[in-house]
């Protein structure tokens, strides 16, 4: 069921990837990640769940070319990913990364303008992306006037206009309440269907992962490794109403079985450290 050959062309691949942060002077190095093997199929929706601090963001940054792995290789569309972010990868970060000095519209236009796109194209793409993210009425507002969820949508719009083929989302809704998160999940699904991009979503919410994804990778406590990869077999046309399906419960149950022990371990880690 989780065999790598069960569908589709490989879009991005991590092979034996580890990341060890050299410790500051007088401190132990931190083994944050791996070894990790992962194949993302073109067009799939893949979620990564795992206890806090297990290396999820590190995994994402290595895949995006923002960090180099300590060992192992990363390829995207057949090309090795080295010290640069490849064309075609869009990233939405865990922290709020909207620029406070720009309006919503200018934030969304930022990447296209730096790339030197003609103003007519910028304006068409930005209006389109803002409308898609439900931000058209806030085009002239500044991020400080928006809620956290809306600011994340601004960052999604800024990524979207560059038409990425692989979209990496690092807990984009981590700070939102559960209901809003379900609705934002629907938006991410719409985005995935419309762009037909490959999506990798990091989340710590099992229900969110189960509802959105084709496959879910469950990671161990630090150093993070994939313990299990669960295939959901949802139809491409789906939305948050699938939370009432019986197999939804089975999926979250299986994820939790895997993660329970690991979450306790990572709790232990933080409990043992200096408060």
């Amino acid at each position: 069921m989780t065999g790598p050959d069960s569908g589709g062309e490989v879009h991005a691949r991590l092979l034996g990837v580890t990341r060890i942060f050299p410790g500051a002077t007088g401190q132990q190095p931190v083994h944050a990640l791996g070894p990790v093997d992962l194949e993302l199929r073109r067009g799939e929706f893949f979620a990564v769940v795992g206890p806090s601090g297990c290396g999820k963001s590190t995994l994402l940054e290595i895949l995006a070319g923002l960090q180099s792995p300590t060992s192992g290789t990363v390829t995207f569309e057949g090309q090795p990913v080295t010290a640069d972010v490849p064309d075609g990868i869009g990233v939405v970060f865990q922290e709020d990364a909207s620029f406070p000095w720009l309006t919503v519209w200018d934030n969304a236009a930022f990447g296209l303008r730096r790339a030197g796109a003609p103003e007519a194209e910028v304006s068409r793409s930005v209006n389109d992306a803002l409308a898609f993210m439900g931000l058209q009425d806030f085009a002239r507002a500044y991020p400080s006037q928006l809620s956290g969820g809306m600011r994340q949508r601004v960052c999604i719009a800024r990524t979207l206009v560059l038409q990425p083929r692989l979209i990496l989302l690092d807990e984009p809704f981590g700070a939102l309440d559960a209901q809003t998160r379900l609705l934002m999940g629907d938006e991410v699904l719409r985005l995935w269907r419309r762009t037909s991009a490959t999506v990798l979503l990091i989340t710590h919410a099992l229900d969110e992962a189960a509802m959105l994804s084709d496959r879910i990778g469950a990671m161990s406590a630090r150093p993070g490794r994939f313990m299990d990869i669960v295939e959901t077999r949802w139809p491409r046309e789906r939305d948050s109403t699938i939370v009432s399906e019986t197999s939804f419960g089975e999926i979250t149950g299986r994820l939790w079985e895997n993660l329970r022990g690991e979450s306790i371990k990572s709790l232990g880690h933080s409990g043992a450290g200096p408060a």
Partner: protein
Amino acid sequence: MIATQRVTDSLIIVAILLAVWQGLNLMVGDTALPGPAATLAYLAHLVPSARFAENALATLAAFTYALVIAYGLGLAIGVWLGAHHLSGAVGEPLLVALYSIPKITLYPVILLIFGLGISGKVAFGALHGILPVALLTMSAIRNIPPVYLKVARTLHLSKWQTIFAVFFPATLPEVVAGLRIGFTVTLLGVLLAEMFASKRGLGFLIINAMSLAQSEEMLTVAIMLFVFAVLANSLLLWMEHRLHRRN
């Protein structure tokens, strides 16, 4: 709406200050503290005079040079200490220490190096201004959220695009705050230098009037300096607020 409210508030404050001034004048008498009316009359007589123009220009020249040096060096030092971690670790405590001691204790040293003329005044004024400009610029650069750099990399910005389109606007509000404080303390430095060792400038006029017991002249010059400082500060503060409103 808010603007008119602010103007009204300012007018009320001015009215209160005038009333207090008049009250004090009635208490201590004309020789110690001339009243608002007498001072205003003196102002009308002093400002057109050649003596005033000459001294005001001397102060203005010294202040302009000092400000250019304070802004230039302050920004350069701030950028260097903010961008280079090791220099920042060494430089910051040094700057903070310098910032917190009364600079007047260093004035004899400045005088020995730069002499009694305009260069001594400029050096002393610049010494005041460099520190807040450098400190706030340094802190502005250190406070850039690391995620901005990651965004710049994922959007494929060049090094210069990252500096001009991300780092520059991200640091601007705090840098402008540094420039505003630098403006005020540079003026203070120049005037102090004129008061203690100079034969020209508005600082000299004040101290000279004091030793000759010409309280009207002393008060007139002081008030004009006060008005100038308040106006300049309000202008810079207004710029700062415009930048902050978006943050």
